[in-house]
């Protein structure tokens, strides 16, 4: 019924977003798919943290790293009203499964974490602008907490691409820095390696695993790699500051409350560099750091 137009959002970074005639940003147009998706598996991967796979071939096929889905229960559930919640597409399989990394924060995630294999959910996606990485460009991913999600997808795709390319530089081009407060929140490292083929550099604030301290400590000095960051706001601020100091190019995935996910409600705005409000669901969630206003 609905066709997905993956061609509209290239990984080339070439999609022009400023409408120069009016001087106003044209939103990133994707045609999302509404998908009644069955949960195929759910496993606990850390404290209060779940890895959920759903069967949604359309969304799996069309998704790119950095994009997200609105994940909810639809309107049929008796006695339940739940707005869908935004989740990064964290993985996809060739046979049409989509993987989501879900941590319980409040009521909504508590309810969604209860979905069991066989249960039906409603997905809308893929949504938003993905990370934009020029082919061959080395990247350094900075993940805080469940900000890991889009990088599972991204590193898995990069590994797959470099495996198929089988060039000599394969494997060297992606670094993954991953920080958590404590070991008990760390994503199951076996599963992570199985999904991505990558071994992350770990950081915990309390030193219970990996290096002690913030994940930002792992950002390489003097590197020219493209920085990609996703995580809690204080972490993003730190990365933005560091990138500015070192003149590094940075794309960040931001989080804001959302209702529609498709650009109609204007609920998800973040402050643009020019002082205007920008809808993060269609113009983000991935922004060049310079597109936004950051606290100093």
């Amino acid at each position, binding site marked *: 019924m609905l066709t997905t137009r993956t061609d509209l959002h290239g990984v080339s970074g070439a999609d022009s977003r400023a409408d120069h005639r009016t001087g106003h940003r044209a939103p990133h147009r994707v045609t999302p798919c509404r998908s009644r998706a069955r949960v195929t598996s759910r496993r606990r991967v850390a404290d209060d943290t779940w890895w959920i796979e759903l069967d949604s071939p359309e969304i799996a096929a069309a998704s790119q790293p950095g994009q997200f889905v609105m994940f909810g229960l639809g309107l049929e559930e008796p006695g339940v*009203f739940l*707005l869908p919640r935004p989740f990064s597409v964290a993985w996809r399989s060739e046979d049409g499964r989509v993987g989501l990394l879900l941590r319980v924060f409040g009521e909504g995630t508590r309810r969604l974490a209860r979905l069991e294999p066989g249960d039906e959910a409603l997905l809308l996606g893929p949504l938003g602008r993905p990370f934009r990485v020029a082919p061959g460009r080395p990247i350094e991913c900075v993940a805080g907490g469940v900000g890991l999600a889009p990088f599972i997808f991204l590193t898995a795709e990069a590994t797959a691409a470099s495996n198929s390319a089988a060039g000599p530089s394969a494997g060297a081009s992606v670094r993954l820095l991953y920080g958590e407060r404590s070991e008990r929140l760390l994503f199951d490292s076996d599963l992570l390696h199985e999904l991505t083929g990558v071994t992350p550099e770990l950081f915990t604030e309390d030193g219970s695993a990996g290096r002690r301290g913030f994940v930002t400590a792992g950002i390489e000095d003097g590197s020219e790699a493209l920085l990609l960051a996703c995580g809690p706001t204080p972490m993003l601020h730190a990365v933005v500051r560091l990138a500015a100091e070192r003149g590094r190019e940075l794309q960040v995935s931001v989080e804001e409350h959302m209702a529609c996910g498709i650009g109609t409600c204007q609920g998800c705005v973040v402050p643009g560099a020019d002082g205007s409000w920008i809808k993060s669901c269609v113009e983000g969630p991935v922004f060049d750091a310079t597109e936004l206003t950051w606290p100093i």
Partner: protein
Amino acid sequence: MTDLTQSLFGVEFHSPVLLASGTCGYGPEYADLIPLDRIGGLVTKAVSVEPRVGNPPHRVAETPGGMINAIGLENVGLERFIAEKLPWLKENLTRAHAFVNVVGYTSDDFAAVVAGLDGEEGFLGYEINVSCPNVKGGTMFGTDEIALAELVKQLRAETQRPLVVKLTPNVADVGVFARICEENGADGLSAINTFPGMLIDVERRRTVIGNRTGGVSGPAILPMGVYSTWRARAACNLPIMGIGGIRNGNDAMQYILAGACLVQVGTASFVDPDAAICVHEGIASYLEDHGLPTLTELVGALENEGISGLPS
């Protein structure tokens, strides 16, 4: 086959279901998701004379059985609406009708939008928003009898198009305001807009919503919307668009039996973009299941209307 067609506001509505203002933008996004021409139409996001930047985030959050929003009527303003948004409506809607939701700080603001739009194509009429709780003075006209009367009169003088006034439930008696609209020349009513509300993040000891207060919508307000529709219907003869918490055919039928001839679906579309289609189909099934050929006879057709309801 049941026929949901009704003649209203001088045109045919082949479906009684519209998308509510502020929840469907200016149309295109939903057109990617649902066949808009299968429903009765949509009401645009509010349009003001000048562009408005809107409120700081967070602008939306969930509440028990509903949500709260304080967008702050962010919109591109009259000029860009005409240049960038109307053409899409004109080109893409065939059977579906569009109402333009109009806001202003002063009655002249409202009048300027109506006057500025009236010669354009691509929409059927106006929904005058005197009931937005999320901006200073947003409900001023909706809660002041004299101001509302003056406003409706002034706008009536500006246009021959359908002029629908969107009421706020935030008054002692919606019926009084419904009657004022009728007496001053409105063609229809929309009932209801959101309820003022507040949500507090007790950890941060701050309001969740950047604007501090917001408007509550969704299933939580369904019984209040049905009530307001019923009150408005009892107070005047204008056609009513019922709004508030509608998720399915059953909810919509409550509004219709209470007196609405059209219904609008807002928050439910966020939960499922197909919501409006499901509402349409639910109403059609209701008619079929009950062997009723047309919708019109059900509007306001409560069986215990007029029964005193007092104990023996």
